[in-house]
């Protein structure tokens, strides 16, 4: 089981290494979006400070939308799923794919996010808090995106359908994080309680996502 998981991770990393373009796309899209927001809205640093956390999460969400369509496409068309769906270690493949997806799409964005926040003029405490909240909170959004992608990957309209399905499902998380960082409610909750809540939600969504994607891939062929 563990070996299969490692193999799956290795395979995903190798595929990414051979097509670095796919890896860089969501990442550069995130940077572009976060640069565009000040240009479009305002460069007034007081306004930017208020909306920075919202921009960060929206930009992350959009880069997720951009990348999830390709998560399953290649494996489905190359017949990899047909092979794997008969295996008794399918669950290890699913976990590996979920882990690698988060690692390759989200982690670069999280690492670069402090720089984006710095050019928005956020102070250091908030940068650290936002960094950790992204580290703990992004799995929730990524899990839901992954789940919907696993359900819609072989459909014609999946590129439009997936965001329509994802938006209502992630509203609680977005509200949670943005209201935590909203200026008038910043002290309403202790950061550790907030992180605990995010962590709990990540665990629950991870379990649900693994279950749904497992069944979906099993029945896909």
């Amino acid at each position, binding site marked *: 089981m563990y070996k299969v998981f490692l193999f799956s991770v290795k395979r995903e990393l190798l595929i990414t290494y051979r097509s670095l373009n796919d890896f860089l796309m969501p990442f550069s899209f995130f940077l572009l979006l976060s640069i565009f927001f000040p240009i479009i809205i305002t460069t007034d640093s007081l306004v930017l400070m208020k909306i920075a956390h919202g921009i960060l999460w929206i930009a992350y969400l959009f880069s997720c939308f951009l990348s999830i369509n390709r998560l399953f496409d290649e494996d489905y068309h190359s017949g990899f799923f047909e092979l794997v769906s008969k295996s008794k270690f399918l669950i290890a493949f699913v976990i590996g794919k979920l882990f690698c997806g988060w690692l390759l799409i989200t982690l670069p964005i999280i690492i670069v996010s402090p720089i984006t926040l710095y050019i928005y003029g956020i102070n250091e405490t908030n940068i650290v808090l936002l960094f950790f909240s992204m580290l703990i909170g992004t799995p929730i959004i990524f899990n839901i995106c992954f789940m919907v992608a696993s359900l819609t990957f072989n459909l014609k309209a999946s590129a439009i*359908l997936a965001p*329509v399905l994802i938006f209502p*499902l992630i509203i609680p998380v977005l509200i*949670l994080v943005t209201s935590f960082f909203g200026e008038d409610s910043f002290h309403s909750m202790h950061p550790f309680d907030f992180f605990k809540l995010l962590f709990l939600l990540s665990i629950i969504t991870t379990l649900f996502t693994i279950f749904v994607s497992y069944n979906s891939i099993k*029945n896909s062929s």
Partner: protein
Amino acid sequence: MNIWKFSSPFLFYKYSSKLVTIFGSLSLILFIIGAYFSLYISPVDSQQGEVYRIIFIHVPSAWMSMLIYLVMGFWSFIGLIFNTRLSFILSHASAKTGAIMCFIALVTGSIWGKPTWGTWWVWDARLTSELVLFFLYIGYISLFKSIESFKKADQVCAYIAIFGTINVPIIYFSVKWWATLHQGASLSFAGGSQIDSVMLTSLLIMTFAFWFYSIAVILYRAKTIVIYRESQKSWLKKDILNAS
């Protein structure tokens, strides 16, 4: 008597026509009584005037929209566990009625909100969560439409419905939390006045009318889906040939 035998499309097809007639006529009668009660008998509200009467449509439709989503999630859950055809059909048939109820609730709510609150839309907790619920319905329906094989569509949509059902209370509480944080309790739903017993009666009559209407329409739609899906089965062909 074995209760499980009613999960077969054949028996459902046989009984659903009668049930549709019963519930449809019940809802029609109740609508007429309810309209009379709510438009003539109910007293004028002391603060809101005549405009409050729209709540006799608004409140039942909002309740139904939430209830139908729970029903959808329930049938999807049953369908995934027991793999019964009929439960998926019922879940699918409920979606459109739920979306319509949601839409009615939103539209009547904003019509009511303009004279009483002075605006068509506020970012209140209830309004926002109703809007999100509407998008959940839209997502479910459009997902179902885009999958060709209905067996796969059943499975896929069931997961979305279940996840949405878990999410609906979370959405409601999160939105409530968010809205109360940002705008305070300037606009509360209860208009300040204690509800009159006549008003309550007419509200209950309208609620039951909406309830029976939804049951009738959902059963009718489910019957149509059964006919569509089972069109190759011999019992259906025999029944239709006998009827004509």
